[in-house]
């Protein structure tokens, strides 16, 4: 895309330069990353204080420092905060956002505004979670981060706390899925020329796999939260043991998300370690293909192991055995990673920095966590250890000893790149040793407490249980750990105030982000680099790639007269406004104040429209920064939309699965026989034909035939409206047949599933109507056929979902269960 060369400023100002307001409308991936990082650090302090409160309460038996109610809030928020507001934003929001484009040689992520939107939605979700604090009947959520139904039902937990938790997590889920979509598309389509999949830095690999995990793991959680919302607000019975429903459904949906979630947190940490260790060993990563493949294998297996959180629920021996075996299998790729890291260090020329300390600490601590994990895959042992402090020890070794050590290592490793200043190594090493002592002192004794029968989530314990000494030991260690974090904050502040200025490449590192100044300029690369091997920057510095291939450098300084014009997308205030609207809307729902819902809704709607029309090219924000297309030549928007469709497939599969499970358990009510086949056959026909009109509209656009483009688009919209009208008629007549929303399990699942499909049709109709308007404005020429194609893809997807629903729900109505 060689537009005419544009003058490039002689000096490239750092991305950090700019007035404070520019942080609110920024869409620069580095700034969004920093925003994520700062908020996550704030929540880390909050979560840390919550952890210390827990430890103080457990210091001695029968302690009354916190009441039961407050303790339950504290441990719930400690878990929720650390997972959703600290680890995920640090890994994905901050690290991936900052590093992925730099490591693949791109100028930004695929959808920069979506990226900013993710952050602001994340922040509003985070605020939302804590909002109950301000209401008399609110309080913080207190049902555990796992929120097991039916304790979360209004009957057992009245008040607004769980409402805030439920909607807060939904909002955070939206933000995370957007992030996943963004990184997936970025990595698939925007890698620098020559950077094949097998040449990507391992951190990029880990983010790619993590994004896929996010896209496919969050839908079940979303569905579960929607069901909970309906139970609490509309009186359905998704999780109550009346009318044949079961609270176990929540556990399945939650852990279908929850276990992949563990890897959503662990894989980026693996990626970071795989960057730090080679740099400081001055050796290429050992067994690169195996490392990449083990990431994929872990991701794939992680969908087959959620049941190991539920061994105690009585799933039956076959299910138990199946989940046990798949869980054990995960140990194999994990073991491969551990040994490969050690082999990377082996024979290296080690540079013992703080970052490397943490990476080495990670190997040992994570191994301990992984090994106790194997115990939990062995069902009988798990039945003794689950919900005891042994499990608390296990996952803190994984999430703190593993993930947090990696984050701390990464913090010391990439800080110079982010801020342009060096941290104090001396203070860093003190922090490392205090962390090691505090961490092991806090969590290792939990293994003993667990085997001695101390259950989790208890706010107090009796004095004769033999648990007192180690609890006191842990509390003291926890404060040492807290002090270590205090040192980190001191180190940060010192570095920001008068730290040593960081050079571009302080560690003699291997990947592309170190080839540009610290901190990087707003557009990252003056010239998009060209890559011909792994460890591209190392190869450029030392002449040979890790495979002996001579790497050709081109980044750094513009070659003569070949400089590309650098157009960065314009900043936008819409993301922050949109997120505020979402926040108001959610708040309105919880406090049941419709005016607030309306106000939030209007803001939401206007900002979406505003966003769509913000660029003159109308939603077709052309990436002039797009370096190369690795997506098999596909446009990045198309890749993004397909990834979204993949995520939606899992969403609908979850709804359909729930429908089929609950249909066979439904009692009373008129049952499935009331569904009318002739009517829905007509609807099916209409929807299929609308798909035909849609492709014809696309074909007309590709021919540049404006008249037929409008005719076919209008036809599609019309058919969509007929379908919706049909559905409205069907619902009304079902209601008159006595099938209300909450009549029985069948009806609630039916209306939810078909209603959500109808909602998707509605969104499609709105999307197509906008296209129609644009078409009449004469702004939909041949060159923008892709806009029509994208709307079409969504439309056809809604169509194939209907194909499945028509068969499984309507035509198989006589089939009683599976």
């Amino acid at each position, binding site marked *: 895309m060689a537009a005419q060369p544009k003058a490039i400023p002689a000096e490239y100002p750092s991305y950090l330069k700019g007035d404070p307001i520019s942080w609110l409308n920024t869409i620069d991936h580095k700034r969004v990353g920093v925003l994520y990082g700062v908020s996550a650090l704030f929540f880390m302090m909050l979560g840390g204080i919550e952890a210390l409160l827990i430890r103080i309460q457990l210091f001695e038996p029968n302690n009354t420092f916190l009441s039961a109610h407050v303790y339950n809030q504290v441990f719930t928020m400690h878990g929720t905060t650390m997972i959703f507001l600290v680890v995920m934003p640090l890994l994905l929001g901050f690290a991936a956002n900052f590093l992925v484009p730099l490591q693949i040689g791109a100028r930004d992520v695929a959808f920069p505004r979506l990226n900013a939107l993710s952050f602001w939605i994340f922040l509003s979700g985070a605020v939302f979670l804590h909002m109950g604090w301000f209401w008399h009947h609110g309080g913080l959520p207190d049902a555990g981060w796992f929120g097991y139904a039916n304790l979360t039902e209004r009957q057992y937990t009245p008040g607004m706390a769980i409402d805030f938790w439920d909607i807060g997590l939904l909002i955070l889920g939206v933000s995370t899925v957007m992030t996943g979509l963004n990184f997936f598309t970025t990595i698939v389509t925007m890698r620098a020329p020559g950077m094949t999949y097998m040449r990507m830095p391992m951190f990029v690999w880990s983010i790619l796999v993590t994004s896929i995990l996010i896209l*496919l793991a969050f839908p079940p959680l979303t569905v579960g939260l929607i069901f909970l919302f309906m139970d609490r607000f509309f009186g359905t019975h998704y999780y109550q043991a009346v009318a044949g429903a079961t609270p176990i459904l929540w556990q399945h949906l939650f852990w279908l998300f929850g276990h992949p979630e563990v890897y959503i947190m662990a894989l980026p940490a693996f990626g970071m370690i795989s960057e730090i260790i080679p740099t400081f060993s001055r050796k290429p990563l050992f067994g690169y293909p195996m490392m990449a493949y083990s990431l994929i294998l872990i991701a794939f297996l992680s969908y087959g192991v959620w049941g190991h959180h539920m061994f105690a629920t009585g799933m039956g021996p076959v299910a138990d055995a199946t989940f046990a075996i798949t869980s054990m299998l995960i140990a194999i790729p994990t073991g491969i990673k551990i040994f490969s890291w050690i082999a990377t260090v082996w024979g290296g020329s080690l540079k013992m920095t703080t970052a490397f300390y943490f990476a080495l600490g990670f190997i040992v601590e994570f191994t301990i966590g992984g090994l106790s994990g194997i115990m939990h895959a062995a069902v009988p042992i798990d039945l003794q250890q689950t919900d005891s402090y042994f499990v608390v020890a296990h996952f803190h070794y994984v999430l703190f000893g593993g993930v947090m050590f990696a984050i701390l290592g990464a913090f010391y490793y990439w800080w110079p790149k982010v801020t342009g200043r060096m941290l104090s190594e001396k203070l860093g090493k003190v922090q490392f040793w205090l962390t090691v002592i505090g961490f092991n002192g806090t969590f290792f004794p939990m293994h003993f407490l667990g085997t001695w029968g101390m259950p989790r989530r208890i706010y107090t314990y009796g004095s004769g249980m033999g648990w007192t000494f180690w609890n006191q030991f842990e509390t003291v260690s926890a404060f040492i750990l807290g002090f270590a974090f205090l040192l980190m904050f001191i180190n940060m502040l010192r570095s920001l105030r008068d730290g040593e200025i960081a050079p571009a490449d302080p560690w003699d590192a291997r990947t592309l982000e170190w080839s540009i100044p610290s901190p990087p300029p707003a557009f990252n690369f003056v010239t998009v680099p060209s890559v011909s091997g792994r460890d591209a920057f190392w190869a450029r510095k030392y002449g040979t790639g890790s495979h002996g291939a001579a790497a050709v450098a081109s980044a750094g300084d513009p070659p003569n007269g070949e400089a590309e014009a650098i157009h960065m997308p314009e900043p936008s205030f819409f993301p922050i406004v949109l997120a505020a609207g979402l926040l108001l809307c959610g708040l309105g729902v919880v406090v049941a104040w419709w005016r607030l819902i309306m106000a939030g809704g209007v803001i939401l709607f206007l900002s979406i429209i505003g966003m769509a029309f913000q660029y003159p090219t109308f939603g077709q924000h052309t990436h002039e920064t797009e370096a190369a297309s690795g997506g098999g*030549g596909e446009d990045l928007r198309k890749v993004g939309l397909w990834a979204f469709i993949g995520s939606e497939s899992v969403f609908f599969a979850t709804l359909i699965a729930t429908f089929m499970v609950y249909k066979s358990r439904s009692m009373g009510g008129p049952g499935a026989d009331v569904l009318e086949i002739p009517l829905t056959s007509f609807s099916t026909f209409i929807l299929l034909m609308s798909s035909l009109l849609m492709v*014809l509209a696309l074909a007309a656009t590709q021919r540049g035939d404006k008249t037929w483009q409008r005719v076919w688009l209008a036809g599609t919209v019309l058919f969509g409206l007929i379908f919706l009208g049909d559905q409205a008629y069907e619902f009304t007549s079902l209601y008159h047949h006595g099938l209300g929303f909450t009549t029985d399990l069948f009806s609630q699942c039916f209306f939810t599933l078909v209603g959500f499909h109808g909602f998707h049709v509605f969104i499609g109709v709105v999307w197509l109507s906008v296209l129609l308007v644009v078409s009449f404005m004469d702004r939909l020429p041949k060159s923008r056929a892709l806009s029509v194609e994208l709307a079409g893809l969504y439309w056809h997807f809604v169509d194939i979902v209907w194909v499945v629903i*028509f068969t499984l729900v309507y035509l198989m109505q006589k089939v009683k269960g599976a």
Partner: protein
Amino acid sequence: MTAEAAVHEQFEQHVHPGASVYVTVAAFLVVLTALEITVFYVQALAPVMIPLLLILSAAKFVLVAGFYMHLRYDSYVLTSIFGFALVIAAVLLISLLLLFTYLSHHLWFAVPLARILLPGH
């Protein structure tokens, strides 16, 4: 290369089929739907209804995804994205059905398994 030319080039690479193919596919879709409804109403087909309906709707699914959504013509990357998601979705659906219907209420097949695994028990 201008943006327009880039888009143009893209469509030259992935040649999409013309209207006649689309109409043919639509005809197939209608016929398949008619068949489905027939299967529903014909009593004699009741024993094989489930597999028949599943095959018919799978065929419709493949037709729409392959032709209208152009997976047949576009890069493998897109097919892989969708295919992987579908596999996960199918795994999820089938395993939830199994967990709730077969596994939690009926233990008949546990008896032979237990006998095999515990010869001395």
